[in-house]
């Protein structure tokens, strides 16, 4: 139990880099198929529902996310600590994305697509103020939020372990870079 908690708290501190890379690549492949199956477009800080993405599009989007995050954080990592290794940053990105792949199940049986469409329609015709959303939708929303927070946490803790960052300025730079990378890649992903 203690080991499991330790693993959830910081897998990058206890698992060997080669094992992390193996799990990371394995989950990355699974994640691509899940995104394709559930028709979701994952971006760094957002999740879009799409009608018919092709498998090639999904693969390219996921490669862009992993490559851009890894390159940006590796560059920042090298500035903070010259001993930072690319492998540790890549592992951080690959493993941190696992909660996001789990959150793809939100769209099981097109649940998210249907609920979001209904909500958008309710906003358009103004009935959003009179009707309350289904309990299941709220529950799924909270689980999705929790998984998203855990994804950001894993990115942060993995970066911290890889770079030995300790100063507040390093943490601020990390979050600023995360937002910048999301904005930069968002345009690129949407153009494909």
């Amino acid at each position, binding site marked *: 139990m203690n080991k499991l908690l330790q693993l959830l708290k910081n897998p*990058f*501190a*206890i*698992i*060997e*880099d080669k094992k*992390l890379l193996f799990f990371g690549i394995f989950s990355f492949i699974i994640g691509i198929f899940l995104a394709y199956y559930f028709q979701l477009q994952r971006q760094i800080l957002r999740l879009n529902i799409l009608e018919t993405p092709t498998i090639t599009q999904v693969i390219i989007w996921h490669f862009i996310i992993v490559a851009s995050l890894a390159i940006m954080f590796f560059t920042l990592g090298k500035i903070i*600590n010259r*001993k930072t*290794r690319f492998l*540790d940053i890549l592992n951080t990105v690959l493993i941190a994305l696992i909660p996001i792949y789990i959150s793809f199940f939100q769209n099981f049986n097109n649940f998210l697509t249907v609920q979001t469409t209904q909500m958008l329609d309710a906003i358009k015709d103004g009935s959003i103020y009179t009707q309350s959303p289904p309990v299941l939708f709220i529950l799924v929303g909270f689980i999705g939020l929790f998984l998203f927070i855990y994804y950001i946490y894993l990115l942060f803790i993995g970066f911290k*372990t*890889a770079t*030995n960052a300790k100063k507040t300025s390093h943490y601020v730079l990390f979050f600023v870079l995360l937002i910048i990378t999301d904005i930069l890649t968002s345009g690129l992903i949407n153009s494909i």
Partner: protein
Amino acid sequence: MKTKLPTLCPSCESLLNVSQLSCENCQTVVQGTYPLPIFLKLSPKEQEFILQFFLTSGSLKEMAAQLGISYPTVRNQLDDMIQHIKDLNI
């Protein structure tokens, strides 16, 4: 019972100095004020780390495998310790 060498003052928590050394053979006693060697100024955990580092011929990867932690964690511990020793020297 194996006694532990105290390095910090129990009253104010400052680093202690050696003020007396004695020879068990001839009972000669040397008095003075000598600072503790750097190794003894480190915490038991840090001393253990240095010992492990030495026994693994300085291989951080081997140390990581032995301690059951990842390579960057061992490297970070080493970096923190280097900084600690530099601070102690100042």
